[in-house]
């Protein structure tokens, strides 16, 4: 309805130019949470902005081809599942829920395992936040599929 090509060329071009870089920055924020500010929440927010910006500025057919409507709920569910699975896996190794250090893989120290566990959790949170925000925007814009 109200989404779609913005009348001004400047806005369209700037939106199209910026959104891939915002996407890249979001991925960087998600992956770089161990060493700098950021992590799943902020990174997921940037990813969602990168998906929403084309929806507001570009023609509808193009914007919804880049990130389809069903992507939002899908990513939200996948991210949430990833988080839950990451919590369940240590339980098979005799650890507690979300205790990544309990996972034993030959050659990887417990501290390294927790490092990797944090990474997987951050990716899950990022996907979940991305999916939830895109879903809310699509629903507000009356573009969701049931």
């Amino acid at each position, binding site marked *: *309805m*109200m*989404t779609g090509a913005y009348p001004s060329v400047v806005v369209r071009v700037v939106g199209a130019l910026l959104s891939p870089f915002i996407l890249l920055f979001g991925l960087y*924020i998600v992956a770089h*949470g*161990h*060493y*700098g*500010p*950021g*992590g*799943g*929440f*902020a990174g997921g*927010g*940037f990813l*969602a*902005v990168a998906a*929403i910006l084309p929806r*507001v500025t570009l023609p509808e057919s193009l914007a919804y081809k880049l990130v389809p409507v069903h992507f*939002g*709920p899908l990513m*939200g*569910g996948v*991210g*949430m599942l990833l*988080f*839950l699975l990451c*919590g369940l896996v240590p339980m098979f190794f005799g650890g507690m*829920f*979300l205790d*990544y*250090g309990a996972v034993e893989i030959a050659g990887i120290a417990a*501290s*390294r395992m*927790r*490092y990797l*566990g*944090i990474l997987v*959790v*951050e990716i*899950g*949170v990022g996907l*979940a*936040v991305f*999916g*939830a*925000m895109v*879903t*809310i*925007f699509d*629903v*507000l*814009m*009356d573009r*969701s599929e*049931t």
Partner: protein
Amino acid sequence: MIVPLDIIIFLVLIIAAVLAINVKDLLAAVALLAGYSLFASLLFAGVNAVDVSLVEAALGAGLTGVLFIGAILATSRHSTAKRNLRRRWTMLPLIAAFIGLMLFASTGLPDRGDPEAPAHQGVSRTYLSQSLEDTETPNVVTSLLADYRSQDTLGETLVIVTAALAAMLVLVRREGDDEDDTRGSDPGGDTSGEARGTTDDEQESGRDPYADEREGGRR
């Protein structure tokens, strides 16, 4: 933390908040709220809370603004707030009392960065000293959020996903819904006809704003 800068930022925050409440054009209010979030993130960065600052800038200034703009596009751009003077005069002493209470309570808070503060006793010492050894993660905030306190993070993520699902439940129009229904007054699908039967009152409150909104939306 630079005290004069903090004072300026606080002043800007208060002005932005008051303007955002009072301005008639809702798009301007959204822009003011985004500015508010940006200055709040500056404030957080000033006290070395870089993670909070980044989240505030990304979610507070970026995403919520976009969602608000989406809501404005779907409804109306102009607020039709009624000014009720009597309510304003009854609210004023309540707000003053609340601010007084908060200021009084703030005198009992420990100084910022005080190592003897209760928050810095107990587990947080272990987290701070053991984080690098336990998790190989230099950023303590990340190891806290995703490892030591990952169940909290699980809950937060669940809240966000649930919010998205709830928004879908409330706002999505299903087939068979009355086409005339506005999204605002749509109770969400398959309630029985009786429960849904609109009395005159409901119709008035449900339909009248719609007419306004349609005019507003076309502007």
